[in-house]
């Protein structure tokens, strides 16, 4: 192993610009892959947030009796399409209002619990059930009106919100995946070209090793180690750059998205996520290096 490592380092020292080019391309690739991974995670979290937060609020008529409210709560609780059913009394509604208007005490002083309707809030297992469930809830005798909380601005219906979110997530995943594939393909080709050039310049050396009984594995080892070194350095630089950027941007992102947990809240969570990412990228990087060097070696030896 020592002799292969030494040979690999010698190759790198002999052609530093080729080594730099390979490392640079791989660093960019893994930087983009890391950023896309974070984006995919965050968009997934965003979608999950909207899918799981209390989306539907059934405002109850004032004359609704506790028995009727309890019966509706039970009925909704038993519905497999519905989850997180929660009853909000008039007093709780007032307190939520006061909390929301804490910066303007005048607004809260002018209201009393009587003007706020009691309500039942619930989430849906899947937003595709929304329209049916809302229609059914509207038909309940004690329900005055039904609203939903998901809204991104210009959407008028829950369907619009869901469609837009799903489209965004799809764009991120498909677009990001395509970009990652293109970059990974480019890195693969760069590795094949550089390792191929290395093999061509080493033709005499390969011949000597062949004649003294070196196995193909022995001959290939320094080449594979060299490619693996490029990949590992590229992965580390790309990953570290992303980690630094994400850590730098986290306070701003958390304050912008508020309660939406687009990134893990604590440093441990972020490091855990990045740890998994690093492991996956090392695996992909080594696979690229192995495949690229094997292909380059077999092409040169076949000539």
């Amino acid at each position: 192993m020592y002799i292969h490592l030494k040979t690999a380092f010698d190759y790198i020292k002999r052609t530093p610009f080729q080594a730099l080019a390979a490392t640079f391309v791989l660093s960019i690739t893994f930087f983009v892959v890391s950023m896309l991974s974070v984006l995919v995670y965050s968009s997934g979290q965003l979608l999950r947030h909207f899918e799981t937060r209390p989306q539907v609020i059934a405002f109850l008529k004032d004359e609704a009796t506790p028995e009727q409210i309890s019966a509706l709560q039970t009925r909704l609780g038993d519905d497999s399409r519905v989850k997180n059913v929660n009853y909000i009394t008039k007093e709780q509604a007032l307190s939520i209002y006061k909390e929301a208007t804490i910066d303007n005490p005048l607004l809260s002083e002018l209201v009393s619990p009587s003007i706020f309707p009691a309500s039942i809030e619930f989430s849906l297992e899947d937003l595709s059930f929304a329209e049916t469930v809302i229609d059914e809830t509207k038909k309940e005798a004690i329900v005055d009106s039904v609203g939903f909380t998901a809204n991104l601005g210009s959407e008028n219906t829950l369907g619009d919100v869901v469609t837009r979110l799903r489209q965004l997530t799809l764009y991120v995943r498909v677009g990001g995946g395509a970009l990652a594939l293109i970059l990974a393909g480019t890195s693969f080709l760069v590795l094949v070209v550089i390792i191929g050039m290395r093999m061509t310049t080493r033709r005499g050396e390969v011949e000597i090793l062949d004649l003294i009984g070196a196995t193909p594995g022995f001959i290939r080892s320094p080449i594979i180690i060299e490619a693996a070194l490029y990949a590992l350095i590229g992965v580390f630089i790309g990953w570290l750059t992303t980690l630094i950027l994400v850590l730098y941007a986290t306070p701003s992102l958390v304050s912008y998205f508020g309660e939406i947990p687009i990134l893990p809240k604590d440093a441990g969570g972020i490091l855990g996520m990045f740890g998994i990412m690093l492991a996956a990228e090392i695996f992909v990087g080594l696979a690229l290096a192995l495949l690229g060097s094997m292909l380059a070696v077999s092409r040169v030896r076949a000539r």
Partner: protein
Amino acid sequence: MIKVVSVTKHFGEVSAVEEVSFEVEEGEFVFIMGPSGAGKTTLLKLLLREYLPEKGQIFFDKVDVTQLKDKEIPSFRQKIGVVFQDYKLLSERTVRENVEVPLAVIKVPQAEWEARVDTILNLVGLSKKAEMFPSQLSGGELQRVSLARALIVNPKLVMADEPTGNLDWDTAESIVELFEKINKEGKTVIMATHNHAIVDKLKNRVIELKDGKILKGKPKESKDVHPS
């Protein structure tokens, strides 16, 4: 140890080796002689399984090397030390590292390398030049490194293709003396050369080739089988 039976090798229309047969016993020192183009190098390459003959068989320790599978060739070659006219040294490696390579190939523990390399470099008289690069050595010294590399794995057979071809007489003589020395220590040596002076000096068995055919084999061994 080696038995070549009716081996034929062509390159297109050109017959490089034609119906060649001979035997080499263990511990022998045999010269393969002939002018340029006689087929000496082709014969050595056939023995090393660099080429595959169109016809005939080559036995090494009773194993037909023409029947070896690709994956068996490296372990076969590891049993043979080879010295080339153009040395074939790794130019970016020191003398010591060049000699270490075969040890790495046959997976000798690294702890043993230094002692083994020192012994061999001492044998070929290059102890003081162990850390030098090939570009800093003379032709004779390069050939000694090549020989040291061939000997480091303690092969039963050493093959040399024109090892004195690029050397002056005095240097060539000293190299041949080294081959004689290792032959006396029990190793079988097959040396291809066109240098009559060397052959005459050592008086070993000669297999003479011309146009790919054996012209004569010294009667002492009388085991060379001439083509019919």
